[in-house]
């Protein structure tokens, strides 16, 4: 595991928050996913050794929660809400617009590795549907036009790098 020193520091710190070490499984997995972007295959053994568990115990947790990723994703993560309010106000069209813009499908990494589009469950902003979460930023009332505008913005930023 090639983790940043800051991550390693938070990992050691977060373990002390719990009376038993195994309780730190979820926070550790979150920290690793934040650092690496996904959970590489060696995560199970590494976390198990850290928390005095068996690797299978960690694998059970990783596979149980859909938000733990076992495969790398693009540099930007676009999450389009698919739940009722957003769906009624055009969430599906928004998602399709993003797919078209980046020439990819939901759940996949776009060619060039710039974005991953996920069609996710409720993002808890039903009043401003349809909503989109790009990395940690919430974008409200994202219709097709706004989706195109956001995509162009991402592409422009990508070009600058």
């Amino acid at each position, binding site marked *: 595991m090639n983790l940043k020193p800051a991550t390693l520091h938070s990992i050691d710190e977060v373990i002390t928050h719990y009376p038993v070490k195994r309780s730190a499984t979820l926070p550790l997995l979150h920290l690793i996913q934040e650092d690496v972007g996904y959970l590489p295959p060696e995560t199970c053994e590494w976390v198990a050794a850290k928390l005095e568990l068996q690797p299978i115990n960690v694998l059970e947790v990783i596979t*149980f929660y859909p938000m733990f990723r076992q495969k790398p994703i693009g540099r930007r993560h676009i999450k389009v809400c698919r739940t009722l309010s957003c769906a009624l106000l055009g969430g599906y069209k928004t998602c399709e617009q993003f797919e078209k813009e980046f020439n990819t499908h939901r759940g996949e990494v776009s060619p060039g590795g710039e974005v991953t589009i996920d069609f996710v469950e409720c993002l808890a902003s039903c009043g401003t549907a349809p909503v989109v979460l790009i990395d940690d930023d919430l974008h409200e009332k994202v219709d097709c036009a706004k989706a195109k505008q956001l995509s162009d913005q991402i592409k422009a930023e990508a070009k600058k790098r």
Partner: protein
Amino acid sequence: MIAPPKPDLVTVNIDGREIAVPKGTNVIEAARLVNVDVPHYCYHPKLTIVGNCRMCLIEMGMPAVDPATKAPIIDPVTGKPKINWIPRPQIGCGTNVSPGLHVKTTSPMVKDAREGVMEFLLINHPLDCPICDQAGECKLQEQSTGYGRGYSRFVEQKNVKPKRTQLGPRVTLDDERCILCSRCIRFSKEIAKDDVLGFVDRGSYSTLTCFPGKQLANNYSLNTVDICPVGALTSTDFRFKMRVWFLKQTNSIDTETSVGANTVVWSREGQIYRLTPRRNDDVNDTWMPDSGRELFKAVMAADRLVATTHLDALVAQAAELFKMNASAGAIAVVGSGRSSVEEQFLTKKLAAALKASTQLVSRVGQGDQLLISADRNPNVRGALVTGLISKLPKVGDATPLSRSTKGAVAAPIRTGGLTDLAASIDAGKVKVVVSIGEDLIAAGLTAAQLANVSVVYLGTHANATSAAAKIVFPTLSVFEKNGTFVNQQFRLQKFAKAVPGPQGATDDLIVLAKLTAAASSAPMASDLGSLWTLISAEVPAFAMTSYAQVPETGLLIDATPFAALPFVEGETLHFKPAAAAVALDS
């Protein structure tokens, strides 16, 4: 002896019947005591309780009490205490008894709940009973008959999961049949201490797997097959060999170590198909090692000894040999810790008639603190109790692998204990060696030493000793005869004949009795009934005992005369050594 304290008893009412059960008993076990069956899958008496199958749902209630006076409320209609029933079903396995607990296991609500649980369990279960190995001993099959609705309302597609996964060298997994009870996971973690199994994914995608790159390869892996309530985990060896309802079950004892795990031999038409553990809460709980399940294969081995000469002719030859070496000490008898108590008793009689010295071959390996002990002879204590030997055999330094290690036990077994005999042979004192099933070369004698003596060999399989022997009596394996062993707890345990022996092999007892009769020119009994009359008269520890009286769970005998002996034993599942164990690495 101080009597164990009487456990606190709690009176509960199950289906209208009052019963007093120890505190801490759960409803399934309490119901078992009044012969009420509460169906269950995930619950296992020897594993932790998780309550995830929901099959053992019951209706429960407590007597109503007046909130102010705490006095029980009496129902004016029936004149009996009023019961406050909980409106929803509860799981029986996770509910411990409490005073006055009332349980209904047959009410309409319970029946409804069971039907519902069964329907959900069967949603993704393939209906492949006709080709499933578990059929006939499948809890799901039994309980769908008992509690299922009888027809399916499921019109959707069943999900697809891995079939025929090799979880390890001995266990095959069919994930579609798995009902996610997690017994195998808990067994691996809690009993075998080899936590490699787990559920990945969730919901109807939940799949039992071994961690990628690891294997369920421990020496107890086949117990997961035994406790699997469905046909998900199957024994790779037994798979597709035989329908279980054709098999005859015979109680036996695992002979690989002094633990003496209780087993069942499953056979049909003289052929053994598998060995499984038999529950004995004082010895092996419900488990047995994988290595012990392989032992029956030796029965059909190509190197089984069979006689070409008539038994009486062989006995006459032996009698001639004995007569020529009648002086005291010219004959040595090598007894066996693998012989039954009765055989050891007759071996002692034979040695006395021949004025011969007696010794035992020791087998010592590494114990695993579970069901494999360091002493790999099943019946060294029997030899002590019957008086065949008076001190323990010396631990050998030779490390040839003997037959019993062909299974999964990797650590070598140190066979030995014949150094005194070797010295006597070298000194030219001993001219004849009678070996009761022991390979003398494996036990440390050299081929040259063996060539200097005449060997009379009683045994089941061909080996270097049988090849060098002058007279060979083919005898029976443990699966082909009746008898008893004394295990490490000094527990006398019975084993029974499961299959007939091969043609030309004779029961050890008959051979030993005939040899004794020839040596002492007095008749000797060879059937268990008459032998036990002799044994109980002569052996103090077995006084007042007979073969018929030994219960299936064994009989503890008085071990105090042997308490000071330095047995080569470590701790096992239900045994703690009294004296400090002899260091194995010396």
